[in-house]
């Protein structure tokens, strides 16, 4: 017995190391959102607000120079960051809705299709996930440019092409998540609804859809996150549109100020808050409606595990 206890503690210690490794960069990001510019650059700067120092003059911000909270307002008033964040939110919302709708329709039909008919569709869906993103990005770039040359109805490079390109990957993810849940929940309740005289549409609306909801929400959230966070595909199909990751990338490569940390901190805080609220609401509603067995499954789905 003491032997097993030992192994257990060893694993726990390793897990703690891993948690530290995972959280250290996040912590550094948050702490350095409050970092002053280096003393030399503050001395050389003549403006009234030290957080207006441009990236090239900000000095070494990888060491701690003292506390300031002015980066938060500097970030929130930045003329490039905020519009880029708004653009990213718009694209992500649209991509999430379209991808989830496409994925839901396909998942319903595919789940109960004959394996022989399903296999080629599956192969195609997995292919969209396996092909490296950089390959899809450059292929989409030349595709959209050529398509616009020949068919004028195609949009020029910009927000629409970013959206159209991203939906491919997201729809595959949504389809797989929703289908896994649909297959997993079995068909006994639908059968019962049929026996009780409910039609296909009523059964879908009153029985199938509510039970699919966790998976649909998980798929939509995951699509939203992927789209919002995506750099590679938009970087090639954006034309002159700036998304948040694109602005971030050029800032990271060519110099930035802690205003970026401040914005990232705000977004992380908002995400954590949203998730905590959702978890609380879900827990409350689930405690009322479904038996405890479903609980773990719902959390799994929320984490994107299935």
């Amino acid at each position: 017995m003491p032997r097993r206890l030992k192994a257990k503690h060893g694993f726990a210690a390793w897990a703690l190391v891993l948690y530290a490794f995972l959280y250290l960069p996040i912590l550094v990001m948050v702490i350095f959102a409050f970092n002053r510019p280096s003393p030399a650059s503050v001395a050389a700067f003549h403006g009234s607000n030290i957080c207006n120092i441009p990236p090239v003059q900000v000095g070494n911000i990888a060491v701690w120079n003292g506390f300031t909270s002015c980066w938060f307002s500097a970030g929130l008033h930045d003329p490039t960051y905020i519009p880029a964040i708004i653009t990213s939110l718009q694209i992500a919302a649209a991509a999430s809705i379209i991808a989830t709708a496409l994925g839901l329709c396909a998942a319903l039909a595919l789940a109960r299709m004959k394996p022989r008919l399903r296999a080629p569709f599956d192969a195609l869906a997995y292919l969209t996930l396996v092909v490296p993103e950089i390959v899809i990005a450059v292929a989409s770039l030349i595709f959209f440019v050529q398509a616009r040359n020949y068919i004028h109805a195609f949009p020029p490079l910009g927000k629409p092409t970013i959206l159209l390109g991203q939906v491919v990957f997201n729809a595959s993810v949504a389809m797989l998540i929703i289908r896994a849940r649909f297959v997993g929940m079995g068909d006994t309740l639908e059968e019962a609804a049929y026996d009780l005289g409910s039609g296909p549409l009523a059964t879908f609306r009153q029985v199938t859809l509510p039970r699919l909801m966790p998976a649909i929400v998980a798929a939509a959230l995951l699509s939203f996150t992927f789209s919002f966070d995506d750099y590679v595909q938009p970087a090639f199909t954006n034309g002159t549109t700036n998304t948040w990751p694109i602005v971030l990338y050029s800032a990271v490569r060519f110099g930035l100020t802690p205003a970026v940390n401040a914005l990232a901190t705000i977004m992380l805080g908002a995400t954590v808050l949203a998730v905590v609220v959702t978890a609380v609401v879900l827990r409350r509603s689930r405690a009322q409606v479904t038996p405890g067995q479903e609980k773990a499954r719902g959390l799994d789905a929320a984490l994107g595990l299935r």
Partner: protein
Amino acid sequence: MAVAEKTPAVAADSAARRVGRSFRPRYPAWLTGPLLLYYAIFFLGPMAILVAFSLAVQQGFGSLRYGFNTSQYHQIATSLYITIFERTLVMAGVGTLLTIAVGYPVAYWMARYLTTYKMLALLIIVVPFWTSFLIRTYALKIILDPNGYLAKDLGLNIMYTKYAVGVGLVYNYLPLFILPVFASLERMDWTLIEAATDLGARPFTAFRQITLRLTLPGFVTGALLVFIPMTGEYIIPNILSGGNYEFVGNIIGDQFNQAQNQPFGSALSIALMAALSVFVIVYILFATKEEQFGA
């Protein structure tokens, strides 16, 4: 009137037929149509044009002549590009092994030893990944900065080297490995291990012969889920190696951003997919074998 009389009858009839056949609603096959059409236009379309580009010839700046010209592929076979392909695959392989070494014990710990806080422990692993990928990589850059504490005070100046790229890969891909492995370990029946140790098996033997075998599908899926995107990685090598240690993905991007040699970039893309498809095919063979013999 006639319509009103007929409709319920038809509905009842079709419902009866459906019930007679399968006792469950079958969703019509055309529901797959929209997604299939979408794939055809926005996935297969770009892929087809990629192949066409890779076989075309560049004429002057930006204009192409389509044909069947394999010279781009001959150029890839030169030592410079072979080196880059080797480097990418080796780095992705090492990155995957490191991810396994770091992540597997934690997945094992969560699945075997935790009960009440199991899902919480999993959630805590996922939370850092709600921040932007770029922000996380940038935060690593602050830590590894040549003027930062790690470099100046601890003498660990690995920024802009392959080690920095390795740290970035492991950091960003850990949950992608931990989640599927945890999912398969969670379904493990741990009484089997107790039975084995009762029968005199040493803990490691029991682990190797029972746990590892039973959870192999999740293990392989997790490893591949990490290895494949690492091979196509673009951002991490770009930011953390500062261009000193580029992957194939970066070379492909350069052909479209700077060099404007699109046929060559297309050929490189096809070559990368060909290299990856080897691993995918091995995985599919493995997966079907597992399915046949039941794992």
